[in-house]
């Protein structure tokens, strides 16, 4: 489904690579947490999957396609197979909930009939069927994120990328969003979620990929936000040992640094 072969990414003007020799494979239908401090390379990973960036070296295959071989003219068509959700929702403030979701389908040339079938369907999936005519500013944060998720899945993508989708939400609302993402995953969509939310990661016990300084330091199925099994992996990546959590997963968010 997604395969990285020794992928490195160095942004222009920086010496330190954002990703450094990353190899991994994500299978169809998996639910993957991408954890690590801000600046560790999580977003770069997601952008590479989306082909918003090209790797400095290494090969990336997504959905059976070699991203290095896709011409820039074909990239939009490739992206139609992916849904993306962000921490800041990115809704269009002057469009209603319905139009926000429909916009996705309009701009890729779907017919009116299809849109009028697919959009209510997607809104129902995310639990917003009564609020199609509201505007984003009339909704709570959790509801806005649900609109964003509806927009991401309305075209039935094979992969859903979520970049800290619960970053702006309170724990209770986050739990609702996670239940929704799990439901979407259960329907066969591969979900890759970058997050800082230790509680969520620990509770769901899914595959966890931890990135530090552009390297994968842990790839664990059924793992938590911090593993006690290999605490040694953090050494040598610029972190003072005292900053490491001595006790337990719950200490993790404060020690791993920036919360936005």
């Amino acid at each position, binding site marked *: 489904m997604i395969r990285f072969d020794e992928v490195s990414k160095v942004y222009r003007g920086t010496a330190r690579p954002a990703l450094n020799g990353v190899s991994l494979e994500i299978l169809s239908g998996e639910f993957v947490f991408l954890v690590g401090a801000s600046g560790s390379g999580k977003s770069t990973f997601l952008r590479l999957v*989306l*082909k*918003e*960036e090209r790797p400095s070296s290494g090969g990336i295959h997504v959905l059976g396609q070699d991203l290095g071989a896709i011409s*820039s*003219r074909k*990239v*939009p*068509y*490739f*992206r*139609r*197979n*992916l849904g*993306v959700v962000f921490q800041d929702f*990115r809704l*269009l403030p002057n469009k209603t909930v319905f139009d926000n979701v429909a*916009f*996705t389908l*309009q*701009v*890729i*040339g779907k*017919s*009116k009939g299809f849109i009028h079938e697919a959009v209510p369907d997607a809104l129902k999936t995310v639990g917003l069927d009564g609020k199609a005519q509201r505007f984003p500013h009339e909704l709570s944060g959790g509801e806005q994120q649900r609109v964003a998720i509806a*927009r991401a899945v309305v*075209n039935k993508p094979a992969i859903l990328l979520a970049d800290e989708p619960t970053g702006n939400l309170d724990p209770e609302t986050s739990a609702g969003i996670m239940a929704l993402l799990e439901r979407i995953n259960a329907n066969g969509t591969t979900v890759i979620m970058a997050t800082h939310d230790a509680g969520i990661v620990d509770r769901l016990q899914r595959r966890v990929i931890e990135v530090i300084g552009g390297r994968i330091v842990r790839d664990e199925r059924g793992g938590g936000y911090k593993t006690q099994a290999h605490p040694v992996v953090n050494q040598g990546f610029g972190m003072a040992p005292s900053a490491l959590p001595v006790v337990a997963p719950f200490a993790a968010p404060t020690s791993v640094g920036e919360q936005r």
Partner: protein
Amino acid sequence: MRIGLVLSEVGQGLRRNLSMVISVVLVTFISLTFVGAAVLLQMQITQMKSYWFDRAQVAVYMCTEFSTVGGCDQQVATPDQVALVQAQLEGITLAPFIDTFYFETQQQAFENFQEQFAGDAVADLISPELLPEAFWVNLIDPTQSAILSDALGGLAGVESIVDQRSYLDQIFDILNVSSLTAIGIAALMLVAAALLISTTIRLSAFSRRREIGIMRLVGASNRFIQTPFIIEGVVAALIGSVLAGFAVVGIVQFFVQGYLAETLPLTSFVGLSDALLVVPILLGAGALLAALSANVAITRYLRV
């Protein structure tokens, strides 16, 4: 569906950037008016050239009693000398190049002069003796006046040989320079127009960056994203081009035909049909300019 969507985006963009759009309209208007004027001036020059060059004659002036140059010695050319020149013009060397020629006596020259400068003070100062006798020659190929100069230049009694085209050339040089000036100004203005269009498009894209970001994310094709912006630029430039078209037609109708043609009735001027020929050129140039600069601007904005 998609066309409707694209057009509504275009309308939104034009409304949102109204002041920039107006400046694009004005700059394209002015620059294309200059282009149109330059084209019309070139047409005018071509038209006048073909008109006047066909009528341009070569004058073989004979000596008067006041002339000292050429084969003259302050003596009126004798009838023998005149006959010799005429024989030369009719002879086998020159005849093949000559269409027609006629002889003008001093009295005829005087009458022509009086007619031409009627009411001018100089007409009273001139007497027939001051004006030379002359052969007026129409050549088959008006560019070959050098043949006459070579053959007749050294003859006794011939004062000088003058190709009227040399007078015309000066006039055409002046017209040419002014049309080149118009083209130069037009080129500068067109550069300004192109830059202004690309700035406008970039502003427009910036004000719609949220939409563009989402469109790129969900896989809208590049062409779909770019088309509204290009149409936006083309619409603004086309409005300017249409105004320039009206201006060019107006200049021809009211200034050239209404004023110049009345004042200088003997000269033929460019007409409305010429102006209407220029209008589609202006429209095409405006649309092309806008499409290119908008395309460059939006492509650079969207580059991954």
